[in-house]
C-alpha cells in the first residue's frame, strides 16, 4: 500500500537523520518539509511551513508548558526537590537499591508539582544522581531510575499531556487529573519492584546507604509541606471552579514563586535564572512541537490517519483486541517517534474509534499518557533518556539503554493492568463526581 510505503520511508529518513546527530526538531522539519513538497507541491508545502511556527506558538492552551516549567524551576530553587529526595532517602535509602527507590518515590512527589516528564527527569537527575554515585550505584540503574521516575511527571497530576489530550478530545481535564493519581501510585510500586529485581540479580548495582534515625526521618516529613500545599492549590482550585486547568499552571507558578520567596531562596539573580531556564527549555520544546506538527501534517496528507483507522477497525476485532492492537502500535511508534508527534498524529484518529467501542474517554486518556510515558523511555528514541544524558554527560547512552529494560517491562505490565482493571483508573474520578 502506498501510504505505508511513504510513511515507512519518511520514518526511516527521520530516524536516520536523528541518529546522525541532527537535532530532533530539525530532522522532523527537514523530512516533513521535503515530504510535503513531494506530496502536495512547493506552494502548499511552503505555505504550511510558513504558518505552523506562528500558530503552534501563539496558543493559549499551550501556555501550560512554560508555566508548569516555571513552577518547577521555582519549586526546585526553593529546595523542594532536595527536601523530597531527602525524605525518600531517609525512609528507603538503607535498603539495597534504596537510593534508586528513593529516586522513584521522590520523582513521584515532584510530579505532583510538575506538569512535564522532561522537567521532572532533568530536575531529579541533578538532585539524585550525585547521591547515587556517592554510594557507587551502577550508572545504568541510577540513570534508568531517574528516566523512568521522570515519566511520572505526566501521569501524576498536573500534566501537560493530559491538558493536551483533554483539549484534543473534549475530555474533562479535572477528571483526567484525578484519574492519574491511583495509576501513578501503582506506577511507583511497579518501578520499586523493577529496582528490587535489578539489585536482586546484581547486588553491586545498588548498595545500601547509611540508615537515617527514625526521628530525623519524621522531621524530614514536615519539610515537604509546601509541595503538598502547592498540589492542593492546583488540584483544589480546578475542582472548586476557581480556575481552569490551563490557568492552574500560571497560578501554580505564582504560588511556587511565593514559596521560594518565603524560603528566602530567591535572589534577583536566582529569579532571573529561573526565568531564563524556563524560556530556553520552552523554546527547545516548541521547536520540537513545530517539527512534530510539520511532520504530522505530512503524514496527515499522505493519508496515514485513515490507513491507521482502517487497520484498527478493518479486521472486525473485539474491543479488547483493538486496545491491544493500539497498544502494540504505540509501543512500536514510541520506539522511533518523538512522543508529541505520536500523540498529535494518533489521538484525533483513534479517539473516535475507541469511543465508538465504548471505552471511557478518561480511561483512554490515561492509557494514552502511559503510552507516551513508555515512548519517553523506550530505546532508541526516548526523550527522557537523552535528557538524563544531557544532564549527566559522562554516562553512555548504551548504558542507559541497558538499564532501562526492567522499567520498560514494569510499564508494559502497568498498561496491561489498567486494561484488565479499568476501575483502577476510573474509581477516583467517579467517586469525586459523586
Amino acid at each position, binding site marked *: 500500500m502506498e501510504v505505508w510505503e511513504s510513511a515507512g520511508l519518511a520514518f526511516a529518513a527521520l530516524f536516520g537523520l*536523528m*541518529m*546522525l*546527530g*541532527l*537535532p*530532533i*526538531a*530539525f530532522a522532523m*522539519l*527537514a523530512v516533513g*518539509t521535503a515530504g510535503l513538497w513531494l506530496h502536495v507541491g512547493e506552494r502548499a508545502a*511552503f*505555505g504550511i*511551513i*510558513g*504558518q505552523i*511556527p*506562528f500558530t503552534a*506558538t*501563539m*496558543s*493559549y492552551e*499551550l*501556555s501550560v508548558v*512554560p*508555566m508548569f516549567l*516555571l513552577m518547577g524551576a521555582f519549586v526546585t530553587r526553593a529546595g523542594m526537590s532536595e527536601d523530597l529526595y531527602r525524605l525518600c532517602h531517609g525512609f528507603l535509602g538503607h535498603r539495597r537499591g534504596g537510593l534508586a527507590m528513593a529516586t522513584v518515590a521522590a520523582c513521584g512527589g515532584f510530579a505532583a508539582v510538575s506538569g512535564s516528564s522532561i522537567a521532572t527527569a532533568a530536575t531529579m537527575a541533578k538532585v539524585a544522581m550525585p547521591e547515587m554515585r556517592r554510594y557507587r550505584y551502577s550508572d545504568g540503574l541510577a540513570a534508568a531510575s531517574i528516566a523512568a521516575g521522570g515519566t511520572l511527571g505526566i501521569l501524576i497530576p498536573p500534566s501537560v499531556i493530559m491538558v493536551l489530550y483533554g483539549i484534543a478530545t473534549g475530555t474533562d481535564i479535572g477528571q483526567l487529573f484525578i484519574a492519574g493519581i491511583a495509576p501513578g501510585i501503582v506506577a511507583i510500586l511497579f518501578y520499586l519492584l523493577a529496582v528490587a529485581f535489578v539489585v536482586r540479580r546484581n547486588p553491586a548495582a545498588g548498595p545500601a546507604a547509611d540508615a537515617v534515625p527514625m526521628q530525623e526521618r519524621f522531621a524530614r516529613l514536615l519539610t515537604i509541606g509546601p509541595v503538598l500545599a502547592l498540589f492542593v492549590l492546583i488540584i483544589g482550585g480546578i475542582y472548586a471552579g*476557581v*480556575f481552569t486547568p490551563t*490557568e492552574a*499552571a*500560571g*497560578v501554580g*507558578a*505564582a504560588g511556587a514563586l511565593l514559596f521560594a520567596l518565603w524560603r528566602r531562596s530567591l535572589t534577583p539573580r536566582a529569579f*532571573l535564572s529561573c*526565568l*531564563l531556564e*524556563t*524560556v*530556553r*527549555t*520552552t*523554546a*527547545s520544546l*516548541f*521547536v*520540537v512541537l*513545530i517539527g512534530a506538527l510539520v511532520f504530522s501534517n505530512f503524514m496527515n496528507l499522505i493519508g496515514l490517519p485513515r490507513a491507521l483507522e482502517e487497520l484498527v477497525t478493518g479486521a472486525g476485532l473485539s474491543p479488547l483486541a483493538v486496545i491491544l492492537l493500539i497498544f502494540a502500535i504505540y509501543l512500536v511508534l514510541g520506539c522511533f517517534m518523538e512522543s508529541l508527534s505520536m500523540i498529535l498524529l494518533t489521538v484525533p484518529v483513534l479517539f473516535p474509534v475507541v469511543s465508538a467501542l465504548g471505552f471511557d474517554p478518561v480511561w483512554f486518556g490515561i492509557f494514552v499518557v502511559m503510552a507516551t510515558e513508555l515512548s519517553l523511555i523506550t530505546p*532508541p*528514541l526516548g526523550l527522557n533518556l*537523552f*535528557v538524563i*544524558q*544531557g*544532564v549527566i*554527560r559522562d554516562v553512555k*547512552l*548504551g548504558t542507559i539503554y541497558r538499564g532501562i529494560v526492567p522499567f520498560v517491562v514494569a510499564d508494559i505490565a502497568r498498561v496491561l493492568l489498567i486494561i484488565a482493571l479499568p476501575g483502577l483508573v476510573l474509581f477516583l474520578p467517579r467517586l469525586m463526581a459523586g
Partner: protein
Amino acid sequence: MIWTDRLFALLGLCAGVLAAAMMVVTTVDVGGRYFFNRPLHGAFEATEVMMGLMVFLALPLATRRREHITVTLFDHLLPEWVKRAAGLLFGVVCAGVCGLLAWRLGLYGERLLRVGEVTLELGIPRGGVATAMSWLLWVAAAAFVLDGIAALRGRPGAQAGA
C-alpha cells in the same frame, strides 16, 4: 563574550520577562474574575501573543546553549575531526531550516498585514507579530551558524546534546 552572545542573552531576557508577565496576567485575571467579577481585559490574547514572542525571543539563546534535543548515540565512536565537521554541517543545516521558516513566516506576516487581520480584543496586528517572529528566526539562523563554527573549532562540550 562576543557581542552576538550578548544580543542572544538580551533577547532571552526579554523572553524571561514575558514568562513572568504571563504568570502575572493569568493570576490577576483569575483573581479579578473570582473575587471581583472583573477579569483582566485582553488576558486571553495577551497570553497568546506573549507565548509566540517568548518562544522566538528565547530561540537564539537556546541554540547557543545547545538546548536542542539531540540524539548522541554514536558520539563516542567518532574521531574528533568527524565530530567537528559534523558540528559545522548540522549547524549550517539547522540554520538553513531556520532561514526557510523565517522566509516563509515573513511572507505570511506580509499577507496578514495586507488583509488587516488583528487580535479581537487588543487589536494587535497579527501580521506584525508574525513579522517579528520571522526576524527572530533569522537571528536564530545566525546563532546556528555561529554554533556550527564553534563546533568546528572544537569548543568544550560542543559534542553533547539535550
